[in-house]
């Protein structure tokens, strides 16, 4: 019998117990979806939320965007980075702030976001090398891929501690141990939360399918890049979402990145130098 069944309610029906995104995010999103909306309106909405404004300015000034000069107004920051990047920046900021102050127990929140941000940066670095349009999509997919782990840590702290213990003893990959204990895993739970929040579908799919088995075929580029970025970041051990051992690399996903092995040192170097700065921009006061 799974722990979830012992508790009575399956994890997936407890998504409502999880934090919701700040109202500023919803207002900002309406403004962005409004065909008559302007960047001024959007900047005004964000400015009503001092914490989000400050965070957006820090991230806009971080190595993620590499702006030539420091910007100190939200409107200027948004007009420089553009609408598509703004959308992903607001969502990233909203998600991190929704979860920031919750206790996790086994894994620190900082370590979790360090892993996620670095995974996003690695994914974006690969997308840039592939000359894909709007690389920020890949940053966001990487950032959100393990969000289901947060749900499990929050909803089922005790069972997750046993899962981490079993994983430490190398009884198997953490997501497989989760399946044994919960009859679901963080990938499925994460996708359910993202759908509950109304996040665009490609990010939900990337979260849901980022653990590709050996013979699986990635269905979209977001999934493939997130998968490869996750392997890179777990190898480098920058932060952790609980996983301690490097997961399996799926060869189809690897081939979709169009990378060759000698590209990896550069990807690693860019990822490490960018991620350090972006992590502190997102997490520090």
């Amino acid at each position, binding site marked *: 019998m799974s722990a979830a069944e012992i508790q009575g309610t399956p994890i997936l029906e407890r998504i409502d117990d999880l934090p919701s995104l700040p109202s500023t995010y919803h207002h900002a999103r309406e403004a962005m979806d409004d065909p008559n909306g302007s960047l001024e309106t959007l900047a005004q909405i964000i400015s009503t939320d001092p914490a989000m404004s400050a965070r957006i300015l820090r991230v806009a000034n971080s190595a993620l965007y590499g702006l030539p000069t420091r910007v100190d107004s939200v409107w200027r920051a948004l007009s420089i980075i553009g609408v598509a990047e703004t959308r992903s920046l607001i969502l990233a900021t909203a998600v991190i702030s929704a979860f920031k102050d919750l206790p996790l127990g086994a894994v620190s929140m900082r370590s979790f976001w360090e892993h996620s941000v670095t995974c996003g940066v690695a994914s974006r670095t690969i997308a840039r090398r592939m000359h894909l349009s709007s690389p920020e999509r890949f940053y966001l997919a990487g950032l959100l891929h393990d969000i289901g782990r947060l749900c499990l840590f929050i909803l089922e702290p005790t069972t997750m501690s046993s899962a981490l213990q079993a994983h430490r003893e*190398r009884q*198997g*990959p953490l997501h497989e141990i989760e399946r044994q204990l919960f009859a679901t895993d963080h990938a499925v739970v994460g996708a359910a939360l993202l759908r509950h929040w109304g996040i665009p579908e490609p990010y939900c799919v990337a979260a849901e399918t980022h653990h590709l088995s*050996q013979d699986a075929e990635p269905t979209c580029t977001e999934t493939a890049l997130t998968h*490869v970025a996750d*392997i*890179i970041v777990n*190898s*480098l*051990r920058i932060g952790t979402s609980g996983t*301690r*051992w*490097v*997961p*399996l*690399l799926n*060869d189809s996903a*690897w081939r979709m990145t169009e*990378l060759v*092995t*000698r590209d*990896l*040192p*550069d990807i*690693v*170097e860019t990822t490490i130098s960018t991620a350090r700065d972006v992590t502190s921009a997102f997490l520090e006061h």
Partner: protein
Amino acid sequence: MKLEDITPGMLLAKDVSDPNGTPLIRAGAIITERHVRALKSWGIAEIAIQSDAPTPSALTRDSASVQELKTMLDIQFSLSNPDHPAVRALYEICLERALKHC
């Protein structure tokens, strides 16, 4: 071996010198990504490598700690597929980074 086939961690078999004969990298050096970039910028297309196998090179430097690091990395990669060239390359990058810090 051609420069594009060189991966960090390989062992240089012969000194690399500039046209005046001044050695730039000594034989026995473990090739790093920095070396590869430098070689590219110097216009050197080919260098002599001691062996294609993952380097026993650094072993001579401090065999105990290298062995310890490798054991740790072997465990860290044990649930992955280290026979995949990309995973092997990541392993080598991690080893190189760990050696730099020890």
